[in-house]
């Protein structure tokens, strides 16, 4: 099963490499990973999506918690949560039909065209990973020149927060 694990950790050199190293060392899988400082500059928030059965995910959260730099760990998928990923996708758009098709599909997915040249469109899209996948599928891969995705960020619904 897919899990979104959020980690609050010390914003210190080497902290990220300990987290990434842990995953490779213990043969845990990483689907995506994002990290950035929080409003408290001494803390970073890292979000990792991973796939594993209950035993593996329990080990992942326990092993993450053991890292000295890690302050808190939460498996967001255990409760109601929001997940968002940003994608920028550059596509061949060299005739009217294709341009109209991309524009229409982007509108349906609530995407924005953020760069235009005579031969290309670059679309920005925000949503869950599966929505982003669906957009790529809807357009077909033949016109895609480049895809860049931010990896998943997640936050719990309601009043639950991950802070110190």
């Amino acid at each position: 099963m897919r899990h979104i694990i959020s980690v609050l950790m010390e914003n210190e050199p080497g902290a990220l490499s300990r987290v990434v190293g842990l995953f490779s060392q213990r043969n845990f899988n990483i689907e995506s990973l994002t990290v950035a400082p929080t409003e408290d500059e001494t803390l970073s928030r890292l979000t990792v999506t991973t796939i594993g059965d209950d035993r593996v995910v329990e080990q992942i959260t326990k092993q993450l918690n053991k890292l000295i730099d890690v302050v808190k760990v939460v498996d967001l998928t255990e409760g109601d949560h929001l997940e968002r990923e940003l994608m920028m996708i550059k596509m061949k758009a060299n005739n009217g039909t294709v341009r109209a098709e991309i524009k229409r599909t982007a509108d349906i997915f609530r995407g924005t065209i953020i760069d235009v040249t005579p031969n290309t469109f670059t679309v920005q899209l925000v949503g869950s990973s599966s929505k982003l996948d669906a957009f790529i599928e809807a357009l077909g891969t033949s016109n895609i020149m480049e895809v860049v995705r931010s990896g998943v960020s997640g936050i719990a619904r309601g009043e639950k927060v991950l802070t110190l």
Partner: protein
Amino acid sequence: MELLSGAEMVVRALRDEGVKYIYGYPGGALLHIYDAIFTQEEVEHVLVRHEQAATHMADAYARATGKAGVALVTSGPGATNAVTGIATAYMDSIPMVVITGQVMSHLIGEDAFQETDMIGVSRPIVKHSFSVQRPEEIPEIIKKAFHIAESGRPGPVVVDIPKDMTTPTERYEYEYPKSVKMRSYNPISKGHTGQIKKAVDMLLAAKRPVIYTGGGVIMGNASQELTALAQELGYPVTNTLMGLGGYPGTDKQFIGMLGMHGSYEANMAMHHSDMILAVGARFDDRVTNGTDKFCPTAKIVHIDIDPASISKTIKADVPIVGPAQAVLKEMLEQVQAAKKAPCADSMKLWWEQIEEWRARHGGRYKTDDSELMKPQQVIEMLSKVTNGDAYVCSDVGQHQMFAAQYYKFNKPNRWINSGGLGTMGFGLPAAMGVKMNFPEEEVVCVTGEGSIQMNIQELSTISQYDIPVKVICLNNQSLGMVRQWQDMNYESRHSQSYMKSLPDFMKLVESYGHVGIKVERYEDLEGAMREAFAMKDRMVFMDIAVDPFEHVYPMQVPRGSMRDMWLSKTERT
């Protein structure tokens, strides 16, 4: 406030931490620190002949005392030579602080002379590591390093210090912190009372219980609490390789080591048990054998200070996170307060069964199939000559298993071996580390002619510091454990397991100024061993010729259950 250079702060902080010995080897990146060592007398430096030995000495000191040992190695090759020792400590959860020199800050990343990214190299084998960025932070980093190494589930900590952090001419205010507080690191100090209650109910309802304990009881200083609880309940106790000495080895409730080379009765009792109380043990693959067949009828209570050890390989029915000492103490109080006692009839039947197993195989080996001395006989003699009271530091291989099986440890912290990593070459430096700190105690290195050659250069360190350890070398002229597996699984094709051109160990040790005794017949063994131990102030190397064809039994059948064992070359369960 006193002004000190970074180099002086390193040495002063170690002194203020109560460190007596540091084990190390100098080099370019450490010259400022070595100069600071030279100008004081409180912290004594022990110069090894290879950095690996420094880490093993520090490690063994920690195993014997529970306090972090300290190693000091230079950048690059000095640091990488220490890697095996750090990994050894990590696998066995041993507290250790390893200070590594580093090239000057401005050269880091430029492939400078003797540069290695030691933080990166050591990352998977440390509990934590620090890289010093400013000299002023040295006291706090060293305090934190000791705190992290020794608390919770212990482990090695690396402190990497670029040379320019120790410049003698730059001085800073020095104050050693009395304590440290870290928001992200708060080791647990007691177990959950409700969980302990559940465990006690299960313990008292058990009909075929086994108490299975590991290194967590030794490093957690919980041997007394374990013994008191086990004796209150009257339940059988088995120890892992790392846990030997946690429960008195000669007590009738002790059923031996368990696992791959565990006793017949311990493995049988585990397999047939209905309730296992696991304390400070991690259900390692050398204990469980095939996890899918592991103890099919047992409910499991697992006490461990590290939550990640619980339900990692074997699911626990009642997990209890906490230090072994505190949890066992509370458990005993609850058992004593309980209205119920263990079921006497069930326990009578269970003990009868265990005694039957014990009588059927318990600690058996043949002496009549060869004229040569059996390695087991040597260990039994060692146990007799030292009254089971020595610090036994072992290398890795058949001799290690024989020592674990036949030396009866009645006290904790006296069996010192590389259990998790299985590091050949550990034994001699480990014995040195213990002997320097316990000069009045008998300290023995049990080794083989293979392992001893992996750190044989330390015979020189022994001369320099007069460390009168006794080496018991079980010489079977082959890498015995490799050979045993080749006998059992590769139709005796002894690929590279035969040691040709062994040195004349007598001449070798004599050249370093030590005493060598060669023993070839069993009749001479006791006399020779007593003679060796009578030489209190000399290092004695006993080269003892043993049967090269002997195997370690019992041996579990791979991927089987705990009860699937070879009991000799021809019998299996």
